[in-house]
């Protein structure tokens, strides 16, 4: 694949132009990734509204039908349901790791097995998230996909 990057002060907006013979199964994930990269989530904190980029989010959790977005130091509430966010973010670096949590794979430091049969993911900010056994296979598959992309 040929990659051209044009850097100039005349551009006011970043534009990605993809030229291909056909949008096939190899190109489609790339398009999904670019769409997910450009996607922002409308969140609230202290009566202020913020547009958060997925790359800034460590994990998203649903508690009592409310969705919370966890960034490095801040926690925001969000009106979107977890399954809606999952459908929009799962093409990128997010994956569901339990019934109530979506995790940003690119910000995981490591995994640890727990005595109760669950896995624990340690994030780069030190937070620990429980990974349910039912989602381990999809997590492995996602990491294999990411290995292939890099």
């Amino acid at each position, binding site marked *: 694949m040929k990659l051209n990057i044009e850097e100039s002060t005349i551009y006011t907006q970043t534009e990605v132009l993809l030229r291909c013979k056909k949008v096939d199964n190899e190109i489609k994930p790339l398009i999904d990734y670019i769409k997910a990269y450009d996607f922002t989530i409308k969140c609230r904190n202290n009566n202020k509204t913020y547009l958060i980029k997925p790359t800034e989010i460590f994990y998203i959790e649903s508690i009592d039908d409310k969705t919370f977005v966890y960034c490095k130091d801040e926690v925001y509430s969000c009106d979107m349901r977890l399954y809606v966010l999952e459908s929009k973010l799962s093409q990128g670096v997010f994956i569901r790791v339990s019934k109530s949590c979506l995790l940003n794979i690119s910000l*995981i430091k*490591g*995994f*640890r*097995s*727990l*005595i*109760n*049969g*669950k*896995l624990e993911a340690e994030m780069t900010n030190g937070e620990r998230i*429980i990974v349910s*056994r*039912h989602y*381990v*296979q999809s*997590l*492995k598959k996602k*990491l*294999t996909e*990411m*290995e292939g992309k*890099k």
Partner: protein
Amino acid sequence: MKFIKELINQIAYIFTAVVLIISFLTYCGVVYPLSLVDSVSTLFIMALCTALIVVTREHFMSENSLFKTFIGVLGCAVVVFLIGYVRGWFKLNFDYVIFILAITVAVYLVVWTICLIQNKRDADELNSQLNRINNKK
């Protein structure tokens, strides 16, 4: 699909553990010897029911692991007593109840250890995948 896969895994673990323990106890003359078909079918029904309890519990119960363990052992014991009694494998007197409870806990511990080892292996595999991705960056 995940539920079915988890159920099949659990049946395999429980069936293997229980067959090994019961074979040893039958050899020692502690439990009544049954015919091969009767033994295998009884043990398979026990493994299926206990696996159903364990996997269903994982899906529907809260995160409290001590309570979950208690429910798991209790559910397995009830299943073992019911099926064992109905199939005429043992009498329901005090000595046997204690003995069967000890076997149930032993099988539970064996399966729990297998799951723990598998969990450790999964964590190692995920960590090496993560390292490979980070090294490529």
